[in-house]
């Protein structure tokens, strides 16, 4: 019965949308239509990405003083994790109006609204009679006045840090929709001693820098450690006795073995997504080619055969493609080929030299190191080579590695001068650059998958 006419629906509106979007300003197109009940319709197409103000109330100690102590520690770790992610802005506890004494009861939301907390975390640590610790938490939406999640975990008391990371992941996932990455570890090369006589040791730590453990003694030079996606193993390159070789190390048993028996130098190893194969480079004369080796059968397959240096291979998450670095075109560039070595084609066409390509676990982007004009940059591009974006640039940045959710990239940076390299993280958006605390200088980080 009613004819609804919307003048300007197609033409002017779209034009305006394009204009505003390109200006990067606030935008949004509202359309009106008034059917029978006159519902006003409004489109909001731009938001303001800002850290979510979150209040993390101190976890209540359910039992004795050690519970209170553990609660304080857990609260601290969660606060630290969420703050470092850049997506959350934990509120200073001094501003809290309500003191949470019973995390099971609904908090007084208006007390948290006045300090502009949009989410609230409450929790409790209780020592159980059997010696374990029960950690429970609830996440509340302050403005909607409802609970978003509530979970509890039982663990050994010495694992309290991990529980804090797991809780952080749960909060992160519920509020952002993405898997967290806090319950992960980093393997890296720890560098100590003076510049001319650096001792390089393989080390592993939690992603927040705690629990550093050294995996090698530092007698041999170690480089490019990589995590297995499926097991507690890492593969790395080391100058053992003579020729550099690729090794496999079980980080739980400390067992170490050489990958393959190759006549020449083998380097830049990386696990395939199934964890059953290692892809690596083999030196052949002045060149190097890419091989893949099955860890069980030890069968080795050649994937490239060129008179160029092909190295730094990395599988796509689905295992069907391999991205690698090659100078077959004159300078070092990024190439893509099928998992069987077919159909190699060049991806990077920008100025400068590209190296160390890494495929995001989410599969949508490839991170790389780009060298040009005396600078090293960390950048990302889509998997077809388009949409290149530089995330950070400086004297020396190298070796990107993705967090398991594909949102954060870790790399190492040297500022120049006598100072050694340090680890940094940056969002794939290019924002929120953070230094990762390490005991001394560190390089060549590799992010583990989520622990399970």
């Amino acid at each position: 019965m009613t004819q609804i006419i919307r003048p300007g629906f197609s033409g002017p509106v779209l034009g305006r949308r394009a204009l505003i979007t390109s200006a990067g300003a606030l935008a949004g197109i509202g359309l009106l239509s008034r059917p029978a009940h006159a519902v006003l319709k409004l489109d909001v197409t731009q938001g303001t990405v800002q850290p979510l103000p979150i209040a993390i109330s101190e976890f209540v100690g359910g039992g004795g003083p050690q519970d209170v102590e553990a609660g304080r520690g857990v609260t601290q770790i969660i606060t630290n994790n969420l703050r470092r992610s850049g997506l959350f802005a934990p509120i200073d506890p001094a501003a809290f109006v309500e003191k949470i004494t019973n995390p099971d009861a609904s908090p007084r939301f208006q007390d948290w609204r006045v300090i502009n907390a949009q989410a609230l975390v409450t929790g409790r640590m209780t020592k159980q009679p059997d010696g374990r610790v029960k950690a429970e938490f609830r996440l509340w939406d302050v403005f909607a006045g409802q609970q978003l999640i509530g979970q509890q975990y039982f663990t050994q008391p010495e694992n309290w840090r991990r529980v804090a990371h797991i809780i952080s992941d749960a909060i992160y996932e519920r509020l952002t929709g993405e898997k967290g990455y806090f319950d992960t570890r980093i393997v890296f090369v720890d560098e100590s001693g003076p510049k001319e006589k650096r001792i390089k040791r393989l080390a592993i730590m939690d992603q927040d820098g705690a629990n550093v453990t050294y995996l090698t003694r530092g007698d041999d030079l170690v480089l490019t450690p990589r995590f297995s996606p499926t097991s507690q193993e890492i593969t790395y390159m080391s100058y053992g006795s003579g020729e550099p070789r690729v090794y496999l190390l079980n980080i739980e048993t400390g067992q170490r073995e050489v990958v393959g028996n190759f006549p020449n130098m083998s380097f830049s190893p990386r696990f395939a997504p199934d964890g059953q194969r290692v892809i690596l480079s083999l030196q052949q004369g002045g060149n190097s080619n890419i091989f893949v080796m099955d860890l069980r059968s030890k069968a080795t397959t050649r994937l490239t055969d060129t008179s160029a240096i092909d190295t730094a291979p990395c599988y796509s998450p689905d295992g069907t493609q391999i991205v690698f670095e090659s100078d077959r075109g004159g300078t070092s560039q990024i190439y893509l080929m099928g998992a069987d070595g077919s159909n190699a084609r060049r991806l990077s066409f920008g100025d400068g030299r590209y190296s160390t390509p890494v495929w995001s676990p989410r599969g949508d982007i490839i991170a790389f190191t780009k060298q040009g004009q005396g600078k090293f940059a960390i950048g990302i591009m889509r998997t077809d080579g388009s949409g290149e974006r530089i995330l950070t640039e400086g004297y020396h940045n190298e070796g990107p590695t993705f967090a398991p959710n594909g949102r954060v990239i870790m790399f190492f940076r040297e500022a120049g001068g006598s100072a050694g390299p340090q680890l940094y993280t940056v969002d794939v958006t290019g924002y929120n650059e953070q230094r990762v605390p390490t005991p001394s200088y560190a390089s060549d980080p590799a992010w583990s998958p989520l622990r399970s």
Partner: protein
Amino acid sequence: MRAGLVSSTVIHVGLIGFMAVSFASPSAFAPPAESMPIDIVSDAEMTKMMAGKKEAPKAEAPKPVVEKVGEKKAPENLEDKVVDKPEVKAANEPAPPPPPPPDVKPPEPTPKQAEAKPTPTPPAPKEAESLQAKPPEAKKEEAKAEVAAKPAPAPPKKPKDIPPKVVQTPPKEQDRKFDTNQIAALLDKRTPQRQASIGDTINNTASLGARVGSASSVSQTELDALRARLMSLWSPPAGAANPEELMVTVRLRLNADGTLSGPPIVITSGNSPFFMAARDSAMRAVFRGQPFNMLNPATYDQWKDIEVTFDPRSMVGG
């Protein structure tokens, strides 16, 4: 010399003529027109019709403008429904004896088609009398002023708050029959949206009108302000792999002061973690945005019910 002058003139004229034509075209950069929502709908016509005139005399109850005499069937049925039962009885039967018997029986148990359904006694005979007395009055008035006169239907309600009723007919004929088999015919069959211009008598003079009876609408500025408020508060989960999951449509019902009259209703559905996060972020923006006091209370009718679509695709896709 002469040839040179001629050719020079011709070329100059040609050149100037060409420039006049080629540069005279309007600028290609016409500013994009603000898209102003316009309705060409009976809805607005209705409100315009109800809009008052300043110079109109103040009436007891605002009367609608009537441009067309409508069919009478439906209104009559409506009236039937409204009118008290005793009246029907009083109308059908001869005037009841002054002291009515406590229980009036039907004269005869007629077959199926009972002419007058045995209705319970009117509790108050006075009321019946007064009701009966009314129609003649109305008729008189009608006779007097052919065009616009009507019996004042006004109950003692405040005329300003009620949307003026479109059709109010006095009970015209008293000899209608109450047929139990045709109860369905007595039901109000009007669709919810009635054409307001139909009435029983033509009335071309507008009355003073009601406060909300104007056709003003929400201005673009108000909408922009509302959108800006939501944009400044909405922090969508950025960087999701497939941004389609992040689209959320929320329906708000607002009070006249711009606060939410109830929790927003999420219209889109999904169960992925991304959708849940997006939904919650949209809800937070809405909760924090209230009161939406940029909206003019005068146009409350138009914004009391808003559907907001939060669509981060253009942000994420870059």
